[in-house]
Every structure is written in C-alpha cells, then in structure tokens.
C-alpha cells in the first residue's frame, strides 16, 4: 500500500510528466502517424526513445545505478496512461526496455546489467527476441536452434522466425538448445547475441498489412561469449518464463494502453456523434479504461501471490482482443479522412491474438494454472 508521501510524490510525478509530454510529443506523430512512411515512423520512434531518456522517463521502474529511475511499476503505469492521452509514439526500444531489461535484473550478471541496461535505456541499442522457430511457436520447449560449446563461448546455428525488429536490432535475446539429450524444459539456454556479426542473415517477411516489422533470421556458426549467457546452461526455460511473464504483464499492458487509448480516441472523434454507436463506444471505452485499472489492481498485490497471478492472467487477453474489436469498428465506420489508418490497424491487430502467446495458449494457461482444471 502506498504511503501518503508516496501518493504525494506520485502526484508530483504525474504533473511533471504531463507537462513534459505536452512539450515533447512530436506534433507530426500526433497528426500524421497513419499516413507516414515506415522509415519516417521508425525515425520518430527511435528519436522518441532518446527523448524519453533525456527527459528522465526511460526505465522508470529499473534500478538507478544502471540508468533507470528507481521508481515503482506504479510510475510506469501513470506514465503510460499520460503518454496515451498525449498520443505519444511507442519507442523502438520496447523489446529491450520491457523484456530484456527486467529479465537481466532478475537473472543477469553485474557485467550484463552494466553493459546492456544503459544502452537499452538511452535508445542506443535496439533489441529483438529470438524465441519462435518455424517448428516451435506455441510449443516453445521444442526450440531446435543449437548453441554448441566452443572455446570461450558458444557457436549458434539455426533458424528463428517472426522476429520483430530483427532488421534494426543490435542484439537478440536468443533461446537456443544446448543439450539435445536433456529432458524437455532442461535443454535450453538464454543468450544475449550480437546481431551485427558475420553469419547472421536476416530476411524481412512482409506482413498482411504490407509492413515488414518482422523477419526470418538464420544463424550460421555465430559466436556468443560465455559472459553473454543468461543464468546457467540448461536454465533457458526458466529465464524464458520471466521474459514471457513480462511480455504478458503489467508494463506491457500499460504500454499497449497507450496505443489502444489513442485508437479509441480517434474512433470517438470520428463517430462519437452518431447515436447508433453510442452504446458500443461506451462499452469499448469502459473496457479500454479497464486495462489501466486491471494493471493498477495487479500491481497492488505481492508479485508472488495467487491474487497477483489471478489478476495479471487476464491482461494480455483483455487488451489484445479488445484492440481487435476497436479496429474492426474503425474499419466498419471509416471515411475518407481515416480509412488508411483503420485498414492498417485492422490488418495489424490480427496479430495481437497471436504474438506473446496466442489467445488459445493464454486460455489454456488460465484454465490449467490459475483455475486448476485437469489436463
């Protein structure tokens, strides 16, 4: 429970953040983001990462000694909320910030924290996540990409797919198999692999929306040093679970709230005056706000408690499927001024119920691990 001083300091934080956002959110993004080229979008998003850092808003809940702000997840949520209302861009550093950084805080060495966190937070290094493979999507334990022990490190060979940001990434949070003979869940290891090396080939995959946000990545005998292995050999599954918990957790949901709130606001501006949509808009609007409330509720619980798991388990499903519905209504009601945006969002949000674990897998997890139903 926050004390009075905490409440007061959060109020102060929120006021300063609101002011900062007002002065810093790029006007062009606010007004033109749906019609700009992919390159321009990337450029603005990359610059936004740097702006966040300069303003002191990068890594709000990460330790100060590594360039974070040493605040609580509560501040992350407050900031995401305000950023959503201010229509701030979503940075390119999201994988580093939301996935790599907290994973290293939980499992990384002092060297890894010192080497990687500052550059994640100042926007210098972009990360990608190399988990999925052509034959190992939902069944992550079936990863085949091999990391073979060599002098001073490992040689990685194999294929990853659906790797978002691969084409711009400096580093990859890579899940690879280190011991094919070991039991399921004991044969994987997590690495921090340098993407700018010989032997890494990246071929962009065009998405249904026409954008190329993800890629297939081939590793041919790519070196990764021992010091860039996270936790022990064979601990990859455990580390991957930390990554997935963050990918489906409160900070990710709070950051998605930013985008979804912006879409909801556009929708309201466009059709809010039409009586036939009143009820539906009100319903969607309440559900968008419930992303925020659900996040706030979950962070009031102890991270290891059953209540926390129960509350947090609904986040990913809640925001992803709601976002799809909003985009569907956007497309259905689009006019000449916004059709480009809604066509793109409609196609893009098809992926929301697939990435970070598909809705089917999420429901399996809820029913078996939260509700305790038999397998």
């Amino acid at each position, binding site marked *: *429970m*926050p004390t009075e001083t905490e*409440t007061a300091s*959060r109020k102060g934080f*929120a006021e300063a953040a609101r002011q900062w956002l007002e002065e810093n959110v790029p006007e062009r993004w606010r007004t033109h983001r749906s019609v700009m080229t992919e390159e321009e979008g990337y450029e603005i998003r990359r610059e936004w990462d740097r702006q966040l850092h300069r303003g002191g808003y990068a890594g709000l809940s990460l330790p100060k000694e590594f360039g974070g702000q040493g605040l609580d997840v*509560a*501040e992350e*949520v*407050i900031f995401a909320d305000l950023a959503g209302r201010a229509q701030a861009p979503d940075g390119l550093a999201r994988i580093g910030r939301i996935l790599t950084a907290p994973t290293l805080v939980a499992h990384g060495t002092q060297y890894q924290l010192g080497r990687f966190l500052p550059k994640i937070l100042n926007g210098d290094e972009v990360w990608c996540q190399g988990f999925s493979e052509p034959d190992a999507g939902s069944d992550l334990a079936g990863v085949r990409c091999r990391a073979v022990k060599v002098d001073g490190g490992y040689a990685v060979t194999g294929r990853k797919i659906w790797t978002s940001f691969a084409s711009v990434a400096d580093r990859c949070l890579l899940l690879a198999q280190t011991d094919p003979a070991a039991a399921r869940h004991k044969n994987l290891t997590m690495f921090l692999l340098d993407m700018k090396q010989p032997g890494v080939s990246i071929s962009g995959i065009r998405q249904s929306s026409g954008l190329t946000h993800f890629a297939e990545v081939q590793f041919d005998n790519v070196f990764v040093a021992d010091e860039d292995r996270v936790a022990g050999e064979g601990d990859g599954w455990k580390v991957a679970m930390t990554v997935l918990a963050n990918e489906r957790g409160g900070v990710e949901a709070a950051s998605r709230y930013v985008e979804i709130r912006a879409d909801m606001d556009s929708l309201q501006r466009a059709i809010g005056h039409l009586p036939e949509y009143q009820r539906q808009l*009100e*319903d969607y*609007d*309440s*559900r968008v*706000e*419930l992303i925020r*409330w*659900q996040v*706030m*509720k979950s962070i*009031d*619980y102890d991270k290891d408690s059953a209540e926390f798991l*129960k*509350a947090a*388990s*609904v986040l990913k*499903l*809640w925001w992803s499927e709601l976002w799809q519905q909003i985009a569907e209504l956007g497309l259905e009601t689009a006019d000449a001024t916004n059709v480009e945006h809604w066509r793109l969002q409609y196609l893009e949000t098809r992926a929301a119920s697939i990435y970070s674990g598909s809705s*089917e897998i*999420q*429901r*399996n997890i*809820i*029913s*078996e691990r*939260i*509700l*305790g*139903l*038999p*397998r």
Partner: protein
Amino acid sequence: MVKTAAGEIGIAVAEAIRDAMTKATAGATIATYIEGKPPVAWEVLGDAGWDLAGVIEDEDSTSLRDLVEIAGAWGETLIQLPLVTSLAVKRHSVAAAEAEGPVTLSVPVRTLPNGTGFVPFGQVPGISIIDSVADGSPVRAFEGGNPLDFAPSLLAASSPGTTSLSAEARRELAVIWAAEAAGRAAKVLQEAIEFTKQRQQFGKPVGSFQAVKHHLANAHIAAEVAQTAAIWASLDDASTRQAVAQSFAQSLKSVQLSIQTYGGLGFTWEMGLHFSLRHITTLRELAAGVLNDA
C-alpha cells in the same frame, strides 16, 4: 495514482463474513436454503455489528472501496438477508443507523409502474424502511406491499412511493450492488470449476476438454474484470455510471459461461444456478434505478 486495494476495515469485515457464513451454511448449497428460511438469523449479523460497518465516524472509517470488498464477500453467499442494503442505508442516515434491526429503502425501477418502488427485503418480517436519507427523516415499519418474486434471494416487495436519496447515496448503492454481483459471479465460477472436475463424459472430466476450459477461462476474465470495474466505480466518481454498467455486463457474462458448463443440469430449477442470474439481473435493475433517479 490511486491505490486500488481495500483498506484494513474492508478486508477484515469481508474475511469475517466469509468465515462466519461458510460455517453457518455448513457447505449447504444455495438451492437448499434460498426458498426457505435463511440459514443464519439477522441477529448474527447485527450482533457482529456488520450492518453498521459503513457508518462514517472519522477519516479512518469505511470507504466506498471497503464496501466493495464487503459487498463482494456477501455476494458470494447469496444468503437472503438484507445485510448490504441495510448497511448502505445506515451509512447514509443517522436515524437508520440508530434503528434496531434491518432497514431498507424503496427504489424506482424500470420494470415497475411510475411512482411504485422496489423494496429489497420488503418481505422480511420486522424490517424498517426510510422515506428519505436526509437528516431528520425517521425510519418506519414497512408493512405490506406486494411481494415481488422474480429474485427470491432479495425477498422483495413493492411499495407506493420511493425513498429520496442524496446523489452520493445513489452512487454508493449502485457501486455496492455491482460489487455484490461481481462477488456472486466469482463464486459461481468457483463452483463450476469444481463441477467440471467431477462431471465425467467420454471417460474423462469435462473440465479437461479444451472448449470447456476456454469457457471457464473467459468466465474468469469476466469475473475478474467485473470486480475491477466495481473498484474503478468506487474510486472514480466521474466514471461511476459506465464502470457500474460494465461491471454488471461482465458479471452476467461470467455467470452465463459458467452455467453453460453444467449442460442440462444448469437449466434446472433445483440446481439453483438461475438464482444467481436472477439476483444479478435484479441488482442491475436496482443500480440503474438509483442512478437514473437523479
């Protein structure tokens, strides 16, 4: 940022209610007690002082967020006693708080003719009613009225005239009823989980079939968010109306999905699942009634 957790009072009273009511009902199902005598006497609640748990004395008194916690715990029981209603009325009227025994009110609802009010627990012998929560308005014995029987859990009656409520009382009643409904939804889900672990078809528990699991996962999401929406309503004055509406929508969705997993059994009277549907839809009507009566 708002703290969403309940305070100590709310948590303590909710826990006490859960403990005492679990003992009092001794595991009996709702179906066995809801149409007969309540499994607990009103005195038990009164002696514990729970009907006065909402009375405001100083800044450490029960907040609306605390009442959400308490109403949620009460909603889990579905015992046909006027705890939540009486507690809310006693919070807003000194005369009601000073009165012995339960006190109720009369709410204008869409499904009754204009000028006629819905009196929750109006069929409870010896209950008092209040005509206005404004200072100086006394309670009086509630006599008669026509029994309303769609939701036996509410033992309701109708009455000519409705209680005059402050804006704050209206808002709080709506929020508390939403919270009660969310508590009910969570409980129905818990029972559905147990049921589907036991019930066998095709040689295995139906709860092991993925289609059934996904229904229950969706019921979990809805129940969880129904409670969050009630919390939101309690902490954000400006959004009460939409948050309450969302809370009821999600509670109902959750219960409907849970009932689906019982197959034909869920459709029977004696299994008692319909009592939850009746209770929640009626609370929704009551909440809309107080919110619209501005």
